[in-house]
């Protein structure tokens, strides 16, 4: 019973933190855009415009709700629901910290450490495509449909390279559990040093999966009005946009826990702090890494222009996938060499 209660509280905290971070990512996006373009950005609501996300949320709720006449009503509503649900489901397997020891009992700061770990993320992400496809199709609008088809083909293409980057990572770590992968990177033994190519492939694919610039073709407004969410209004549109920010938060968390040590940091053993203090410090540092990657997502958005669709497909199939295969072969040789099974 106690176990159940703790997990419930943890689920609630992770959910609320994802929502909070996503809400303030919208603010950060506008402020960073303003900074990079030498503007002031939102500064009306509260000091430095800090209440802007609340004002935006309120605006979304107050807007008129429109469902197109010839739309498939049930699927039209289902689309944003799936999108939001899958976005908030992936946070479950991320180890947010090592864990706290209270009265002799150890409480890991992770909702669940399932045996299939990283595959669960892939499962959920691959379901997320349906949110866009169903929404785009149910709108009964050709621009929405084009946006949905672009989005889904882009996501399927980049999922392949992403999966192959993960295979190479699993070959060196020997486990699928995200917690074990993070534990292995104690101190500064981060996976980026054994998988430099894998990191680059994974991050590029994460950009494509989140539909972020330079791969934001599904909502390419110069060609497709608003892409798959052209017909959406009010909070349903809000959900689509919001889910993108949650996805960005979660993928930053996954990138930092798989390749950048998660809650580990250099000189962790030399500090001489109690395990609980170290664990809390680790969580803070993990969030620092996450925020850095969120900033990186935004930095790239205002630096690199959008790709053309054929360039996107070319990059996905002819560059990323062969590179990922080369990475797998190289990692295989590396693992054999490290275990002393390779003789020259």
């Amino acid at each position, binding site marked *: 019973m106690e176990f159940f209660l703790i997990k419930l509280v943890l689920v609630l905290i992770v959910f609320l933190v994802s929502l909070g971070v996503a809400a303030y990512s919208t603010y950060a996006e506008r402020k960073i855009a303003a900074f990079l373009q030498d503007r002031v950005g939102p500064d009306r609501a509260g000091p430095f415009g800090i209440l802007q996300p609340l004002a935006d949320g309120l605006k979304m709720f107050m807007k008129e709700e429109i469902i197109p006449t010839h739309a*498939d009503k049930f*699927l039209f509503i289902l689309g944003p629901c799936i999108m939001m649900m899958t976005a908030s489901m992936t946070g479950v397997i991320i180890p947010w910290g090592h864990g706290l020891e209270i009265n002799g009992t150890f409480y890991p700061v992770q909702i669940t450490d*399932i*045996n*299939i770990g990283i*595959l*669960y993320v*892939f*499962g959920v*992400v*691959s*379901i997320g*495509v*349906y949110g866009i*496809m*169903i929404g785009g*199709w149910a709108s009964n609008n050709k621009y929405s*449909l084009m946006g*949905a*088809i672009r989005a*889904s*083909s882009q996501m*399927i293409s980049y*999922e392949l390279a992403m999966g192959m980057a993960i295979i190479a990572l699993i070959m060196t770590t020997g486990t*699928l559990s995200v917690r074990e992968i993070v534990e292995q990177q104690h101190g500064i033994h981060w996976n980026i040093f054994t998988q430099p190519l894998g990191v680059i492939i994974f991050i590029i694919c994460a950009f494509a999966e989140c539909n972020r610039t330079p791969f934001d073709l599904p909502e390419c407004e110069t060609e497709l009005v608003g892409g798959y969410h052209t017909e959406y209004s009010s909070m349903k549109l809000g959900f689509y946009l919001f889910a993108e920010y949650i996805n960005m938060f979660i993928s930053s968390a996954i990138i930092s826990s798989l390749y950048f040590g998660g809650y580990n940091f250099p000189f962790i053993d030399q500090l001489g702090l109690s395990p609980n203090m170290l664990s809390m410090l680790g969580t803070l540092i993990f969030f620092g890494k996450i925020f850095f990657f969120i900033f990186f997502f935004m930095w790239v958005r205002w630096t690199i222009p959008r790709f053309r669709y054929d360039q996107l497909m070319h990059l996905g199939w002819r560059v990323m996938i062969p590179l990922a295969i080369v990475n797998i072969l190289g990692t295989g040789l590396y693992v054999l060499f490290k275990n002393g099974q390779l003789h020259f």
Partner: protein
Amino acid sequence: MNPSLPFFVLATLSVFSALMVVLSRKPVHSVLYLIFCFFTIGGHYLLLNAQFLFAVHIIVYAGAIMVLFLFTLMFINMNKELEPHKSNLLKGAATIAAGCLLLVLVAATKGAETLPAISKTSDIGTVSNLGKALYGQYLLPFELISILLLTAMVGAVMLGKKDVE
């Protein structure tokens, strides 16, 4: 509470969604019911503690193959007028053929080992056990299947090419 209640709930949902695949008027709805059906079947794998099989089932079937199905259906505008009319003879033949297949499938389970529908202790489906079985006991069939898949892939590329002499 009946310990096999989760099984019966899932089984009912599977049968219902499988029926709706056939009975739905719109092709897109059929595909969505099929995806739902895959999820319920994935639920059965979870009840048997086969987490890896569950993940792969969802990623491959629900996440990749059905996306392509949906993809194709969205491009084709299926109209009632364009649907080819099928004669009664054809319908009868189809029913008999499908019935025979059902008979074969049911008969195949006769000699099979029976397992409890819900098992918490079995760790047969965990990644490490499955890996050991595939790369140890069943190595040859596993490698043969990879050749089969490669052949199918090459064949699909050949068929998909537009200008082949």
